[in-house]
């Protein structure tokens, strides 16, 4: 192969390898939460804590809280810990019995996005 041919092939390989790269997807998943996923509580928690595997971007933590399928109003605003690895969602006056779901959507510090839903139930004994 000539040097020119080699160059063409390598350029093509470079472009191909970059185009073929699968789309980045989520990996800063939820490692822990309070209450934990699937828990049944006797008392409503004052706040929900989400702990992520890696630091997340503070400006892009989006959270939607639903109780029995209805969005909670006013929408709780998450507070990020100093290490940006956990977010606290105050439930405030909205806390009460029912099936709760917390949809979270974050961007990890390396730019990858991730999302999921934390569910728990509050059922007074």
């Amino acid at each position: 192969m000539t040097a020119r041919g080699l160059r063409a092939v390598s350029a093509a390989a470079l472009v191909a390898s970059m185009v073929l790269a699968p789309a980045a997807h989520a990996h800063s998943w939820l490692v822990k939460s309070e209450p934990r996923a699937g828990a049944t509580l006797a008392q409503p928690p004052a706040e929900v804590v989400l702990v992520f595997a890696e630091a997340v971007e503070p400006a892009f933590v989006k959270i939607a809280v639903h109780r029995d399928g209805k969005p909670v109003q006013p929408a709780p605003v998450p507070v990020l810990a100093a290490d940006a690895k956990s977010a606290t969602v105050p439930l405030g006056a909205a806390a009460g019995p029912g099936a709760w779901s917390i949809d979270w959507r974050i961007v990890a510090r390396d730019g990858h996005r991730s999302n999921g839903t934390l569910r728990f139930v509050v059922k007074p004994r």
Partner: protein
Amino acid sequence: MGRGLAFVAIAQAVGWLALAPRGAWLGATFDLCSRWRALAAAALGVALLAIAWRLHAHGVELDPDAPWRAAPQTWVGRVLIAQACVVAAALVASRTARTATLGAVLAWLALAGTALSGHAVAADVSPWLSAAAIAHVMVAGAWCAALGPLLLLHRAASAGHVTRPWRDVLARFSRVALPAMLAVVAAGTVVALWSVGRWPALFATPYGQWLGIKLAAVVGVFASAAWLRRWLARPAAAHRPAGRALAIECALALAVVGAAGTLADIVPGAHDAITWPDAFRWAPLDAWRLHAPDMVAPLVGAAAAIVVGGLVGLRLRRRHAGLAWGGAGTGVALAAALALPAIAVDAYPSTYAAAVTPWDAASIAAGAQLYERHCSGCHGRTGRGDGAAGAALPVRPANLTEPHVGWHTHGDLWWWITHGIAGAPMPGFGAVTTDVERWQLIDWLMALSLGHEARNLGTRVLSRAPWLPAIDLRWTDAAGREHALSDLRGREAALVVLIHDARELDRVRALAASPPGPGARVIVVAAPPIAAQLEPAAGVDVAVDADGAIAAAWGHYRRTLASPDLRDDAPLVARIEWLVDRFGFVRARWRADEAPVFASADALRAAVAALAAEPELRSPDVHAH
């Protein structure tokens, strides 16, 4: 794709700018220097475009409506902007011959941006890992920087534009290139080990596969570099063949960079779900534990094949080199054909699946209820495979208390519980249980299996020998705050005290009066009526076990060699204490009816202090096999 392009372009600029002031040394016949600076400027321009493209793509991911406003709000965005600024500064510096070297240094520093915006640094795991990732990229960049200029210098030398013999130039490069490449490989290995995480990810995730492509290209780079070194060692030789080897090395380097750029954009194997592609996996240890008798003959045969092949090779070495290699090769091939199937065990797509439940009392309790409902008919109430419905089956239900249950991966158990066992009467429960419920069943199976192994737990702490994972438990303190045993992770040891008889509360009072030391917390587990009799004491946490889940889960760890309770009919023990180290392993146990307490309060304190001095030896993940 912007990442790889920016990297290559910046690296080339580094090379040209570093070369520019060396025109005299090279004996350039006319002003090649300004031409090289122009090439560098062009490369830096391309790099700026590539970075801008990346920044825009990143912004679109964040907020499609205002990408340029969103991008600077993230770490990656800010790194890219800083990288662009440094590249721009290098571009300015490339304009005059005097500042060319400064430009080279600036451009080289800009390469750090490639690592700073990648997984290893942004993940914020450890400064060492970040340092390795940055070193990997920057040294690789320096090496890459030399390749393009070398290629063109070779041309210039052939055309007579430089007088310095090309061999001299190559020899100079070669002297620094080898240590540099080894440094790149060492740093890269550190980063790769972290990002691949576990070896199955190497085969069963896109990340692992791209890493394989990258490694193959790296091997090619080393091969062509070795060829060049041999060529240098020979006396006089023509330029031509060396030029071709160099071109090949450049092409392979581009392939390495392309693969690296892809790796930086996809999910690291350590974080990706593994869907195992094959019906088997090679796992000598698991194979040995599961079917050792079947392995002896093939392994002996394989060893014999290697010995015979080796002997044939040695004997024929002098007379028939070809036959010798053939004999040795046949021996190795035969050995592989015999040994590889023997060390293989069955595997399923979910073999390396990760549990979705925490290893805690609530999950085990939920699993116990599900077991009662779905499984006990065949496998028996206590898991011994003696259920009434199983008696008539052609294959007897497995005894789930035997250690082999713990030797399968949890993903294997998940597969069987979901889909059934092919060719056996074990049915699948995928249709009647949820994913979470099947993981709860597995947590229960693990508790059952570990409970039988817990017989080996003693009353003395064996130094540096953690093996039994503590079961997480939760409690609410007087102020209404929730706590978990796992919250102590990395900080404090715990003495878990399970009380079934109110008379044993005196022991708790004694512990409160004479605590096991600053490095350990006392956690009392008791049913509500007993817990109510306990007056609050500093240093003692009380987990009120309203539904009995904690007592049931930790109760698996009651078994001792003296009281194995294999029939599950022994009365409850009035009190059991377990010492849990700060990494979440149960290290010793005392039962009220056997060796009731640690020899003395002082001895307990000494044991706690010894545990506090131990480093982390392994992580207590029951779910990792």
